[in-house]
């Protein structure tokens, strides 16, 4: 069962904005504020309970310069291993697929194969190379992702992509787990002679002491 992310922001409120003072102004849009980005969040049936969106996609119209930082925990989840390898072989990416519900950590080779299958399926739908797809997962450790539910939801997720603020908001809700609020922010600032936008979304509430590199 999939429901669209239009009502996603009804599930949990937005976090207060803690933007430090600087030579910028806050703008709406989160991850879609910057030129060239679309986002979506839908319920794909991955969560154990409830119908809150659990599948998010951020996509770029062009090949974007990519960077990633990852947990230094030696027990690293399959999508972490996959992304590190992918960023090693490609400087560019065009999509980030995120699921909530299962962390796909401590799932062995089978969990890694799940990530590759998800990336390949999404790349086919978006007509891009698999190495241009990056994956993030969050949820219960030791559980493989509900792959069939995820793969069946991909067409709807891709069709839901939008450059609107609603697209960004639904994605920000879809990546939450025990969070009480969704986290999304964007700014606009002068960089040299041009106006540039930087936006983002995040999730996190417990098991939080990042040491990423």
């Amino acid at each position, binding site marked *: 069962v999939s429901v669209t992310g239009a009502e996603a922001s009804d599930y949990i409120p937005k976090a207060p904005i803690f933007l430090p003072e600087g030579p910028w102004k806050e703008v709406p849009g989160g991850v879609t504020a910057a030129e060239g980005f679309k986002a979506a969040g839908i319920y794909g049936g991955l969560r154990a309970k409830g119908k809150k969106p659990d599948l998010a996609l951020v996509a770029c119209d062009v090949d974007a310069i990519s960077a990633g930082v990852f*947990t230094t925990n030696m027990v690293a989840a399959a999508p972490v291993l996959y992304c590190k390898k992918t960023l090693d072989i490609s400087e560019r990416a065009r999509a980030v697929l995120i699921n909530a519900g299962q962390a796909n950590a401590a799932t062995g080779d089978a969990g890694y194969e799940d990530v590759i299958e998800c990336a390949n399926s999404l790349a086919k739908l978006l007509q891009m190379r698999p190495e241009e797809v990056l994956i993030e997962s969050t949820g219960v450790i030791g559980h493989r992702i509900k792959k069939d539910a995820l793969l069946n939801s991909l067409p709807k997720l891709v069709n839901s992509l939008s450059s609107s603020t609603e697209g960004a908001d639904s994605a920000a809700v879809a990546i939450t787990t025990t969070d009480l609020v969704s986290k999304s922010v964007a700014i606009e600032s002068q960089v040299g002679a041009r106006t540039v936008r930087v936006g983002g979304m995040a999730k996190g509430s417990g098991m939080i002491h990042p040491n990423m590199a």
Partner: protein
Amino acid sequence: TMLGVITTDALVTSDVWRTMVQAAVDRSFNQITVDGDTSTNDTVIALASGLSGSTLIASLNSHEGMQLQACLDGVMQSLAKSIAWDGEGATCLIEVTVIGADSEAEAAKIARSVASSQLVKAAVYGRDPNWGRIAAAAGYAGIPFHQNKLRVLLGNILLMDGGEPQPFDRAVASNYLKKAGETRGTVGIHISVGDGLGRGQAWGCDLSYEYVRINAEYTT
């Protein structure tokens, strides 16, 4: 687990972008703590489309490079603070600022040591202006400093100076903490450890009974 996705339409080279992202993460997400547990899945992915029409940023030390770095720092710090504010069971955000260290990295390490202290976090929840726990957590951070230069403020209330406790109105200090907890506000802890130029910040939250309930009932 914390996850993040950052996007920009700035035009930037790959090596500069990757260096910038790590620096911004070190000043933001790597400076938050809720419970001291590092996840198996923590990830931040950052994409730069280059569609703004800006000139190519190929140097970190260029004017444009520094401007973009500041923007990245700002966005990531905003998101990082939201995570700490939303820590399981939290009633308030704790913002620890350290100045006077020999470097930014040393100041940051002291700040995170204080923000991570279970005793400091529990004291904030108990609305206890416990300068001793703050001083101890700064001291065991692994960064050398002269303890007679230690200065600690809670909000704008001076608790310690010259490494010694100062007379302060305990009720006022406790009310400062109580008000932050009642309004889901921010508790500011300001620490000076010397005369260096190093400044760093870390963010956490108070430790409540609710944290234990949530994690006693939720299984991984």
